[in-house]
Each structure stands twice: as C-alpha cells, then as structure tokens.
C-alpha cells in the first residue's frame, strides 16, 4: 500500500519464514520481514520478542535453521558479519563498536586505510572523512580522538562508516536511547537524507512517538513470532501495543491482592534520583505484598533497586524502613536494614560460582558462622545450608557441591537461601525466573507466595508481563527512569502496562 507523496521503492530485502532455535528456546518461529529501498521500517516488540536475534541471523552472526533471505533479488546466507558488511548491510549497534583511542578518521577507515606506499596516509584519510561528513551534513573533526566525542557524535561516525562502505541497508538498534533531543533531531535529518538516497533502514526502537515521526511501516514481533506489519501513518499507538502484547495467557492473572487491609508500609522511597536511569522515583511497599516492577529494558528498574540496595550511589531522595528514615550508602548498610537483593545476573552478581552451596548460603552472614577462634565453622555452615536446601527443595546431592553444577532454577534457590539465612524482611527479586525452565519457575513462584504469606515484603522486577500479572498484588511501571504508572492487580492489564511502559515525556 502506498502513502501519498511517498516514493515507494522496490523491495530490497525479504526474510521469509525464518526459524531459529537455541537449546530449549524457540527464538524465531517462521518470522517474516520485508524492506523496501528508501524505506524506514520499524521493528518493534517486547524484550525477548526476537528482534536482535532476527538481525543477528540477517547479518550472519547466527545461522538460521530454516527460511530464506533474499537480498537484491538473490538468495543469500551470510556466515559471518564481515560477509554481510561486504554485501552492503550495516548495523549501528546500541553499544557502539569503536576504538576510543584512535581518531575519528582512523576508526572509519580501519582495515581500509589509504596508503602512501607502505605508510598510512593519515592526511588523505582525514580529507576523505571530511568529504564523507559533508555528504551527510555532519560537522565532526576527523582528527579528534573518538573517545572524546559525545555518544551522539560517535553514532554519527558509525553511520558515516556504514555509508562509506556503500551500505544499502542500515539497521539501527535503539539509536536514540543515549541521545539528547537536539541530537535526535540531527539523527532524523540524517535518516531522511539516507532515505532520499534509497537506502533501506531497519529501525529498532521502543519509542512510539518516534515511530510515527520517522518511519514508514512498522513490523511487530512477539515471543519469537511475526505478528504483523502496519503503516506508521495509519495506525495508533494502541494498535501497536495490542500487537505487542496480544498473547493468550495460559495462567490466570492474580484476581485480587493478597495484602491485608491497612498492612503497614515496610519500605517507602521518596524522590529517588541516581544517575541517568533513576529520576524522581517514589513508591511504597507493604508487609506481605508482592510489588511488581514492570517496564522495558533500560527503564531503570534494576538501577532503582541497586540504588535502594546501596550498590549504586544515590544522588538524592529518601528511604524509610518501617517508618524510620535510613541512610544506605553501601550494600552492607542495606543488608543490615534487612534488605536482600537477588540480582538479574545471578552468575555474575548473585553467586560465587566455584564455591559450594554451603559457602554461598552463608556469604551474607559469615560472622554468625565463626568458631571462637574466628575460623569458619564448616559444620554449622553445612547444617544451615542443608536446612534451606530442604526447605526450598533444592535438587542437589549435597551442600558441598559447587553451585556451578546446579541448574538455573536451583542456583536461584541457593541465592534465596542466602537471604533467608540473613532474615531479610524486604526482598528484591530482579528477573527471578530468567533462564529457568517452566517447572522450576512454578517452584520459584510458589516460594515467593509463601514468603509473602510469612510477612516478607517483595519487590519483583520482571520483563515478562504474564509473570507480572500472575504474581503481583500491585504493579509499578517505569519508563526511561521515571515511574509512569501504578496499578492494583484488579485494574491491571497487559495493554495498560505496556501503554505506560512506552510513555515518554
């Protein structure tokens, strides 16, 4: 379908019925995607929908299990990113791939330097870089050290690099996440120039308002599947949201809150500010409550949790525990006040992978497991660990097994055990069931409910909407550092949550 006044180019790229699985995960399920010359085509979906995976299949980082990719009329299959680059497909990554110590020109022409005999001709490289920048109406000094540029300017260098490689397709992965408003305007100007040059652009972004401004079509993915393609000018935000979350949920969302009437406020956070990702966040947490924290990646939920836990520096704001104001500057302070934090990446931040279950269980309370001689009382340690292995039904031959040997779900139970030993009353679970199989997931859910019944207060950060709806008594939604919504479980829905999760100022 053609929009008025738009030059519709021919199709340059078609991905048909792309299928890709990893062990236990069906990442891409018969996904379709089409890109025309001179088109800006948005690719949208929740975290884990498969957008990155699809792009990695396109560029040759992953190999597909089934399906066809047709580029410029020919069927192609790239086995490494270099091949796709040579063919004219470029990606501007979210985390820029730059050599910060080299100059702008040196970065752009790395691997393709202009030579003067055996020596590199830096002068020519700088001149060519200027020519390139003029084509794109950018002003950057090619002799400037890359590391000294702002993220916005670095990104423009990446774009210039792609153009210099005669890219015909450019993929932008969350390009505006780190840009200021004026930088975004500059970026859009460049994108319009690229479009005029008949370059096809794939635009991955969560930002609804941008989709309407800069894109021609939008394709939505969900849970590894292709949901549909809309024309940006003709659709509404709600249409897109419905496509993003319109899944059938097999488990019933929690029907009503389990929190007793008038339950006391165990944790109160007022006007928390920390870095770029936590902007004036306030909320309350009650005894026996499971408070779900929903939002997209980069919303600032983990950063908020880390600020409360003392892992990151708090710039301003107040924290009250059981009504009393507290100062939390380090995790040690937080732990003393009864807060436990189960991090997103348990292998990196939650467990010492080579150490035993027993050692990990007592990690936060080691002072209670010392003999009179100040040496560690292994017997006592093992007993405590065994107690929680039994209570949490952790599947393991014994407590002297290294936690690295356990499955994801059981590792998670060890982390929970660590905080139970500490008698933490406030538990922050960050993506508690990530990377855990379905069976173990139910066990973790059951455990969380038990803990809440016992009177613990739980914050559950999760990117899985069905999980949030199943477990939470109340839901707080964040978007780019701000709290954008709060719902009781009775009034919450996937659509409502997603609406505020994409609500920018």
């Amino acid at each position, binding site marked *: 379908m053609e929009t008025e006044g738009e030059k519709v180019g021919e199709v340059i790229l078609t991905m048909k019925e792309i299928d890709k699985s990893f062990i236990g995960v069906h990442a891409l399920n018969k996904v379709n995607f089409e890109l025309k010359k001179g088109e800006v085509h948005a690719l949208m979906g929740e975290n884990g929908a498969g957008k990155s995976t699809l792009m990695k299949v396109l560029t040759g980082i992953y190999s597909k299990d089934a399906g066809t990719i047709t580029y410029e009329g020919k069927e192609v299959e790239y086995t490494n*990113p*270099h091949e796709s*680059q040579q063919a004219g497909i470029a990606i501007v990554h979210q985390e820029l*791939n*730059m*050599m*910060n*110590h*080299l*100059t702008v020109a*040196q970065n752009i022409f*790395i*691997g393709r*330097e202009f*030579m003067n005999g*055996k*020596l*590199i001709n*830096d002068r020519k490289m*700088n*001149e060519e870089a*200027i020519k390139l*920048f*003029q084509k794109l109406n950018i*002003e950057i*000094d*090619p*002799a*400037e*050290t890359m590391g*000294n540029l702002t993220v916005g300017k670095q990104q423009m260098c990446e774009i210039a690099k792609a153009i210099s490689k005669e890219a015909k397709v450019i993929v932008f992965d969350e390009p505006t996440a780190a840009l200021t408003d004026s930088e975004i305007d500059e970026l859009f100007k460049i994108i319009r120039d690229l479009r005029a040059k008949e370059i096809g652009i794939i635009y991955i972004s969560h930002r609804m308002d941008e989709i309407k401004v800069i894109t021609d079509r939008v394709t939505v993915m969900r849970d590894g599947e292709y949901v549909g393609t809309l024309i940006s000018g003709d659709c509404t935000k709600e249409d897109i949201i419905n496509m993003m979350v319109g899944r059938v949920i097999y488990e019933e969302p929690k029907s009503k809150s389990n929190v007793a009437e008038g339950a006391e406020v165990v944790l109160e956070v007022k006007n928390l500010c920390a870095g770029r990702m936590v902007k004036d966040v306030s909320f309350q947490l009650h005894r026996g409550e499971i408070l779900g924290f929903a939002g997209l990646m980069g919303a600032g939920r983990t950063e908020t949790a880390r600020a409360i836990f003392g892992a990151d520096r708090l710039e301003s704001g107040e924290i009250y525990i059981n009504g009393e104001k507290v100062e939390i500057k380090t995790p040690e302070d937080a732990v003393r006040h009864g807060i436990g934090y189960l991090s997103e990446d348990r292998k990196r931040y939650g467990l010492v992978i080579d150490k035993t279950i027993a050692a990990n269980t007592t990690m936060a309370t080691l002072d209670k497991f010392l003999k009179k001689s100040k040496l560690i009382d292994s017997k006592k340690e093992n007993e405590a660990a065994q107690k929680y292995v039994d209570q949490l039904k952790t599947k393991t031959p014994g407590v002297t097994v290294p936690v690295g040997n356990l499955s994801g779900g059981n590792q998670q139970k060890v982390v929970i055990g660590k905080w139970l030993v500490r008698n933490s009353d406030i538990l922050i679970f960050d993506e508690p069931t990530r990377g855990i199989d379905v069976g173990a997931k139910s066990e973790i859910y059951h455990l969380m409910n038990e803990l809440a019944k016992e009177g613990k207060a739980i914050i559950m950060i999760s990117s899985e909407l069905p999980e949030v709806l199943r477990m939470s008594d109340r839901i707080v939604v964040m978007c780019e550092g701000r709290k954008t919504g709060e719902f009781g479980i009775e009034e919450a829905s996937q659509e409502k949550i997603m609406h505020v999760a994409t609500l920018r100022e």
Partner: protein
Amino acid sequence: MEKKQKVSWKHNSIVKAVGTQRLVAILALLVLILFFSIASASFRQYTTFVSILDASYYIGFMAIGICFAIITGGIDLSIGTVLVCSSLISGTLFVRSGFPMWICLLIGIAIGILFGLVNGLMISKMGLPPFVATLGSMMVSKAIGSIFTSAQSITWPQATQPGGWFRNIFKINITSASGSQILIPTGFILLILCAIIMSVVLNKTRTGRYILALGSNKEATRLSGVNVDKYQTIAFVFSGMFAGVAGLAYGAIYSTLLPGAGSGFEMDAIASVVIGGTSMAGGVGTIFGTIIGVYIMAVLKTGLPFIGLMNYWQQFFTGIVLIFAVFVDVFNKRKKN
C-alpha cells in the same frame, strides 16, 4: 552553505592522549639531571654521561619492544630472561663453537624473535592470559640458557680481541694523539634510530595501527575485518626481537652473561614504558615517551651512587616515580570522566 571544515593537525590523537604525561616525564628527566648535577660535582663529567648512556641501551631496546606488547593490553614478563638466554646462546656459539661473529649476532636476534613468536601464538591462538604465558616462557628461557651453556657464564670478546668489532656498534673507544680516551656512544645513535623506525611503524604503518586498535577495542577491531590474532602475535614478536637486540647490547657493555640472571630486567623496561605514558590498559602509547622513561631510569640508576646512595635506593626511587607517573595518568582519566 559553504563551510570549510578545519582539521587541526595538532589534535593528533596520540599527542593528545599522552600529552600531559609526556610533559611530566620530560620535566622529571630534566629535574633529575639538574638535581644530580647540582648535588655532585663528579656527576657532571663526560664519563658519567657515557655511563648513563651505557645503562640505557639494553633497557632501551627492551622497552621499545615491550611497548608494543603493552599497547595491546598485554604484558611480557619474559624479555629479561630472553635477553640473557639469547645472549648466552649466541655468545657461546662464538666463544666455544667458533661461529663467525656476525652470524652470532643474527642468531641472538633470531632467538628473541622465536620466543616472541611462541608468546604471541600462546596468547592469540591459545587464548592464554599474557601474564601467565610470558611467565611460563620466562622460566623456560631462563632454563634453556643454563642448559645450553651447561650453567657456565659467557664472556663476549673485548674490543681488541677477534670478533670484538661488534662492540663498536654500541660504543667506540678512541685513543687520541695525546693518549686520552674518547668514548663515542654509538649505541645511542642505534637506539634512537630504532626508536624512530619503530615510532613510524607504530603510528604510520597498518601493523602499528592495528596493534593500537586491538589494544583499544579488540572486538571492534576484529569485527572490522582485521586479523587481530596476527597483529597481537606481531606485537609480541617485536617484544622478543628487541629482547634479542638488548642481549647483544648487554654483551657489548657488560661483557659477561650469567645463566639464571635476567628476571628483574623486564621490570626496568616496563617501568620505563609506563613512566613514558603508555597505559597498561592498552590502546595508547608512544615510543618517544618510552625513551624518556628509559632515560629517567638510567639517570636514576647511574646518579644515585654519586650522591652516596647504594643501588637498592635506586629501586626505591624508581618505585616512587612509577607510582607517581601512573597516578598522574589515572588522575587525568578521572578528571575527564
């Protein structure tokens, strides 16, 4: 709208990155020389000047080589023992097996290249951490030197003996008509020549460019289609090669090599490189800065006895200078962030 974009050549990334530290290093060198000259009259002699230069050769060559390894973000602990090993073996071939001197010189360098190649391959292809890989080759080269010479020391020929001509590469001894000795430090010319050549290699050839790039961001460089394994290996080959050259310089100046010696030499080279502004994190560094660092070390080493301090003080002050130099670097980086 016509706008001529100005390109500031003074903005050269290397100058900017190392600027402050280099300035501090040059100042430090001048201050040191001034200090010792004032503190001791006997310091201000031509013979002292020659001594400083003598001490700078083997450290200087090692430092030039290891600079490349450090720029890739790695380290080479083996250069000291490779220096001794290569000098022992090539020296033995001359003294005990009668090989022609020029062949021995080439073999000395070749042994250094060989160890460098092994280091480079272990690190790039096998993925061993540089610290561990070069620690291993350090021990192996130490042993090989002893094994080859049956644990006996080797003394390179004096200038007047057959084969002793090689010393003239580093130092020429002329007796003037009036009978006084004039020493010409040709080694200095060689060192500076090597420094200039390697500086051009680092900044102006693809090899040097890719070594800097991979030190700055190995993955980004790899994704740009550059064979990072090859260039990382080359960096370590340079390191080993110059350890071989340093071995010849050592033989020319100090004559005798003792098997089992060598570990500790690399520390002087590493300190020189760091004081000169090359970051241990990789991605940035200059040969010029390294040479300044080498002379700071050499002046310290030579000057301290003149003010009555024994050799162990040299280690003490070197350590202080090193910490200070790195502190300046870290402080600047923190300020930037």
